[in-house]
C-alpha cells in the first residue's frame, strides 16, 4: 500500500516530470495519444479511455488530455473546430478578466491581494500590512503587494456582488505546494479571482485552489487553464454551494451514508454510534477530491483515473448547452458504450438514475473498507475516526483505490437491485425527509437544483 509515497517525482522549472511508477504499456503515452486522432482531428475516445483507466496519462500530455476528459472539447470535433473554439474562449476570458481588472487593479498585474481590501459595507480598507515585508505569515514573494489604496470614489456605487467578490479576494489560498514561483502564484490567483466573479452564486471558497493549482501547472496558457478549471468546477460546484445553514456537499455525504449502510452495515452502525452518522469526516475528501489525502503527483493520477472512469461522451454538448448531465436521457440507442468510462457505463447499464452517485463516494467507501478492521477495533470516539482518516496521507494507492471503488459500486448496484421494494421505499423516505427538512428551511430547491 505504501509504494506510491516512495515514488520519486520532480517539478523542474514549473514542469511536472514523469514519475517513474507510470508503467509503460499501460499509461497513455504521447505517441499513442497523437495516433488516436484522425487526420481531421476526430478523437478515438474509447481507445484513449481504455488506456487512461489502466494507467493514467503521461505527464507531457496531461493538460491536453484533461481538457477532453473534463469536457472542454468534443472528441467528435476537428482540429480546426477546436482551434476556433479555443480562440473564442481565450477572447471571452480576456473580456471577463478586463472587467475584473477594472474592479480590482491587481488582477492580471502579477501581484495578488493578501489582506482584506474592503469592509462588508463596501468601505475600502487601506492596509497597514500592505508592504508585506517581514510579515512572514503573509508574503513569500516580492511581487506581492497590497499597498495600492483603492480610489475612494469607487466604493460609493459598488453593488453587492462586487463587494461580495472583493471580500473574498484575500482568502484565495496562496500556498502552492511543490512549485513556488511568483508567476504561477499570480496566475493561480488571477484564474480564481476571475472564476469567483463569473460564478457569483458560489464565489471563492477555500479548497478551490487545491483543485485549480494542478491545472495551472499543467496548462501553460492562462485562459485555457481557466476554462479547464471551469469545467472541473461544473462537476463539483454543487458541493461548494452554500446557504446560511447548509452546504451542498451534504447531499453527497447523505448518499455516502446510505452507500455504507448498504455495503457495510456493521461499520455504518459503528460510525453512527460514534456520533459520526453525518459522515462529516469525509467532507474534505469530497470537497477537494482527495487532494490532501494523496501526494501531489498521486492526486493528479487519481483524478485522471476518476474522470476517465466517469467519462460521458456527451459532456461537451451538455456543458455547451449549460445543462447538467442527466443519466436519464443521455444515452442514445445503439451507442457505443465503450465511449463511456467504466463507472458511467455501469450506471447506465444498471439504470441507476441517482445524479449524485460518483466515483468519489465509492472511493471513500473503498478507503473505509481498507480501514474497516482498525476502525471497528480501535475507533472509540469520533476523534479516533477523524484521526485515522486524516492520517492516511501518502498511504493510498490511487489505482488500487479506484479499482476497489469500481468493485464496491457494482456490489452496491447489485445489492440495490436485490433490495426489496419495501427497503427501497424506506431509503427513499429518508431522502424525502432530508429534502423536506431543507426545504422547510428554505434551502431545498436550491440545494437540489445544483447539478
Amino acid at each position: 500500500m505504501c509504494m506510491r509515497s516512495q515514488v520519486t517525482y520532480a517539478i523542474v522549472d514549473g514542469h511536472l516530470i514523469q514519475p517513474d511508477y507510470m508503467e509503460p504499456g499501460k499509461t497513455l503515452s504521447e505517441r499513442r495519444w497523437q495516433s488516436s486522432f484522425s487526420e481531421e482531428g476526430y478523437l478515438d475516445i474509447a481507445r484513449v479511455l481504455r488506456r487512461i483507466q489502466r494507467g493514467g496519462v503521461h505527464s507531457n500530455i496531461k493538460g491536453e488530455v484533461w481538457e477532453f476528459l473534463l469536457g472542454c472539447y468534443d472528441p467528435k470535433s476537428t482540429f480546426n473546430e477546436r482551434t476556433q473554439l479555443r480562440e473564442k474562449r481565450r477572447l471571452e476570458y480576456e473580456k471577463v478578466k478586463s472587467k475584473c481588472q477594472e474592479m480590482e487593479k491587481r488582477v492580471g498585474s502579477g501581484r495578488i491581494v493578501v489582506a482584506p481590501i474592503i469592509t462588508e459595507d463596501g468601505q475600502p480598507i487601506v492596509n497597514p500590512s500592505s508592504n508585506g515585508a517581514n510579515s512572514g505569515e503573509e508574503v513569500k514573494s516580492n511581487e506581492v503587494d497590497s499597498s495600492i489604496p483603492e480610489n475612494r470614489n469607487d466604493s460609493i456605487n459598488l453593488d453587492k456582488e462586487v463587494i461580495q467578490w472583493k471580500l473574498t479576494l484575500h482568502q484565495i489560498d496562496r500556498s502552492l505546494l511543490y512549485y513556488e514561483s511568483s508567476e504561477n502564484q499570480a496566475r493561480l490567483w488571477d484564474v480564481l479571482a476571475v472564476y469567483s466573479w463569473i460564478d457569483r452564486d458560489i464565489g471563492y471558497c477555500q479548497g478551490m485552489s487545491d483543485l485549480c493549482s494542478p491545472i495551472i501547472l499543467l496548462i501553460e496558457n492562462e485562459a485555457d487553464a481557466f476554462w479547464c478549471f471551469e469545467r472541473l468546477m461544473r462537476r463539483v460546484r454543487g458541493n461548494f454551494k452554500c446557504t446560511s445553514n447548509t452546504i451542498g456537499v451534504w447531499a453527497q455525504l447523505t448518499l455516502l451514508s446510505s452507500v455504507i449502510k448498504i455495503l457495510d452495515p456493521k461499520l455504518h452502525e459503528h460510525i453512527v454510534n460514534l456520533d459520526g452518522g453525518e459522515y462529516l469526516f469525509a467532507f474534505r475528501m469530497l470537497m477537494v477530491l482527495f487532494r490532501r489525502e494523496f501526494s501531489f503527483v498521486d492526486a493528479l493520477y487519481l483524478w485522471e483515473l476518476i474522470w476517465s472512469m466517469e467519462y460521458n461522451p456527451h459532456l461537451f454538448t451538455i456543458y455547451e448547452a449549460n445543462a447538467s448531465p442527466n443519466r436519464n436521457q443521455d444515452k442514445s440507442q445503439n451507442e457505443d458504450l465503450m465511449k463511456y468510462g467504466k463507472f458511467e457505463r455501469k450506471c447506465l447499464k444498471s439504470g441507476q438514475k441517482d445524479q449524485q452517485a460518483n466515483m468519489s463516494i465509492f472511493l471513500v467507501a473503498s478507503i473505509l473498507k481498507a480501514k474497516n478492521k482498525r476502525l471497528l477495533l480501535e475507533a472509540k470516539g469520533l476523534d479516533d475516526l477523524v484521526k485515522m482518516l486524516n492520517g492516511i496521507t501518502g498511504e493510498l494507492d490511487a489505482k488500487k483505490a479506484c479499482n476497489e471503488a469500481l468493485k464496491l459500486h457494482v456490489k452496491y448496484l447489485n445489492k440495490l437491485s436485490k433490495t426489496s421494494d419495501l427497503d427501497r421505499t424506506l431509503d427513499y423516505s429518508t431522502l424525502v425527509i432530508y429534502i423536506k427538512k431543507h426545504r422547510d428551511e428554505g434551502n431545498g430547491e436550491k440545494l437540489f437544483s445544483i447539478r
Partner: protein
Amino acid sequence: MAHRVDHEYDYLFKIVLIGDSGVGKSNILSRFTRNEFSLDSKSTIGVEFATKTLQIEAKTVKAQIWDTAGQERYRAITSAYYRGAVGALLVYDITKKQTFDNVQRWLRELRDHADSNIVIMMAGNKSDLTHLRAVSENDGQEFAEKEGLSFLETSALESHNVEKAFQTVLTEIYHIINKKALAAQEAARNSGPPGQGTTIHVVDSSDAGSSKSSCCSS
C-alpha cells in the same frame, strides 16, 4: 463527546479552535501539539484534529483540539463539531482589524452551538508583527473583560504564549469540573435519598482521578 476509560490520562477535554480564516489557527495548533510552524500552511478544509497530553495540578489531562475552517461558508459544517466542546480558543489576527471585529460573531456562533458553560480564551495572534499591528493589546483586553473571556496575545511563529493560552483554558476547565464535583457531593449530602427527579453524579474527591470526566457540563 464520548466518555472513555483509558489509563493514559485522568481527563479528556475537547477544545475548539475558531476564528476568521488566515488568523493562524492551524499554526497555533501545530505549534502547541508538534512544536511546528509553517509559513505557507494550506487552508483547513472542514475540520482537522490533534491531541496533546499535559499535566494540570498533578492530573494528566488530554486536550483534544479541533481545528476548524475559518471561512464563513464552512460554518454550516464546523458548528457540528462544537458539540461536546468544553473550551474554545477564539483567535484573531492583531494585524487585521476585521478579524477582531468578527470576534463578536464567533461568540454568537458559540452561544448558538456550544455548551453554555464553555470556557473561552480569546487570542490575538501574530504578536510578532508589531510593526503591522492594527489592534492594540488594550482593545483586546477591554473587549475580553467586557465579554468575560480570558485573553492573551500569542505568536505561533515565535512560540509565544501558545502553551500558556491552552494551559489557561485547560486549568480553568479543570477547576470548574472540580468545583462541580464538590457541589455535586454537597448536593448529594443535602438532598436526602435519590429519586427526586435529578440525577447527581457523585465524585469522591479522593477518587476524582478515576472519574475520567470529559465534560464540565452537568
